């Protein structure tokens, strides 16, 4: 069976390659932040799909359907709770993940695109967090979204278009809910998925960059080696100088060199 799968798909080698990829060891707990982000996003997708079983995106029924999920539906409170709390944790974990990347300098060449896709993912998640708030159609979510759209309408030059795009009319109403629903459930998740793929592909391509403390031994070796090379060069220079001494004077130069060597 394993051989057959390997022959037909090559999946066994791929898996082996994937699973035994060497990764840095010392900072391993720091690098769980990225996978925690992925895990929470997966939770978002799963619980979001389950919520769609009961949620009705119309102004008449949105609040009632959420109320039904919370009070009547089997495990409704749990599913919505996980959706809500994992969204909150997600924002926090993304912040930590970003801080880790920033302070360890992991965005430097050749990992610029890891950073850029990461920023895109952050913006998409913020968009999801914003659009999700309105879907409950309760006072908090509704008025917070109205304020949010108002803020968008202050954009220089494009403010009117932004507000129009989000509102779908003159005031927040059924069209707004439909748009926020479409953005929250289709547009942004569909945009999120490929960028997660690129982010992970790039991670595997360039390897996990550890903090500098992952490289102390190698850096020590490098510095030792550079020191030896320096010595060798000075000695060589010294010999050359010695040979040149009879020919040219170069006393000043010599002084400089010797004081360097000491």
């Amino acid at each position, binding site marked *: 069976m394993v051989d057959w799968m390997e022959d037909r798909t090559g999946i066994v080698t791929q898996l082996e390659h994937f699973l035994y990829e060497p*990764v840095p060891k010392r900072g391993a707990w720091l690098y769980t932040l990225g996978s925690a982000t992925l895990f929470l996003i997966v939770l978002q997708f799963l619980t979001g799909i389950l919520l769609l079983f009961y949620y009705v995106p119309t102004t008449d029924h949105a609040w009632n359907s959420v109320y039904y999920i919370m009070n009547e539906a089997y495990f409704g409170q749990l599913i919505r709770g996980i959706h809500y709390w994992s969204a909150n944790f997600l924002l926090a974990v993304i912040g930590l993940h970003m801080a880790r990347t920033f302070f360890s300098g992991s965005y430097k060449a050749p990992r610029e695109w890891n950073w850029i896709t990461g920023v895109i993912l952050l913006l998409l998640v913020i968009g999801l967090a914003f659009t999700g708030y309105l879907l409950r159609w309760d006072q908090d979510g509704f008025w917070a979204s109205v304020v949010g759209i108002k803020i968008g309408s202050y954009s220089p030059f494009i403010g009117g278009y932004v507000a129009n795009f989000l509102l779908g009319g003159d005031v927040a109403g059924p069209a707004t809910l439909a748009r926020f629903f479409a953005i929250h459930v289709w547009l942004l998740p569909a945009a999120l998925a490929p960028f997660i793929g690129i982010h992970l592909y790039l991670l595997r391509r360039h390897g996990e960059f550890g903090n500098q403390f992952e490289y102390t031994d190698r850096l020590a070796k490098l510095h030792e080696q550079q020191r030896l090379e320096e010595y060798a060069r000075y000695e060589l220079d010294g010999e050359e100088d010695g040979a040149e001494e009879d020919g040219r004077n170069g006393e000043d130069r010599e002084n400089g060199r010797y004081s360097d060597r000491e």
Partner: protein
Amino acid sequence: MVQNVAGGKAKPVEEEVITEDNVFDKPDETMGFFPGQVLKDGWVALFLLIACVVMSYAIPAPLSEPANTAAVDYVPRPEWFFFFYEQMLMFFPGYTLIAFGAVVVPTVFIVLMFAVPWLDREPVYSPLKRPFAVIVGVLILIVVVLNMLLAVSRIINFPEG
């Protein structure tokens, strides 16, 4: 060590010459992604899942009154992760400044965020050797956290808005 585990890929260990270019190619100590990293990731995921489950019963996801689109006096609160943004807007009062604070400043910040790899091109990684980047990063963190605290204190002080 790890290459041996991967099976068949073990190369004869040759003394690698470490240069400026390849010193950061691989860390001192590595481990196989599985099981080392996978296990740690799994523990964190399990912890988060349990936290989500416990929280969803301890503090159920909120649902306030049905939206009353005609209400005029309702004071909405953003989610906590928008607190710092909302608080920041307080520093740009009035009709002329609001566009600047609400859109221009965040846009500039986002553009700068995209540009980070090109703004900091030093080939050193250690935070100790990149004082400028670290100071900027810490300042941003302080501003965000302070703004959050200001928003929280404002909400506690003026629960009615």
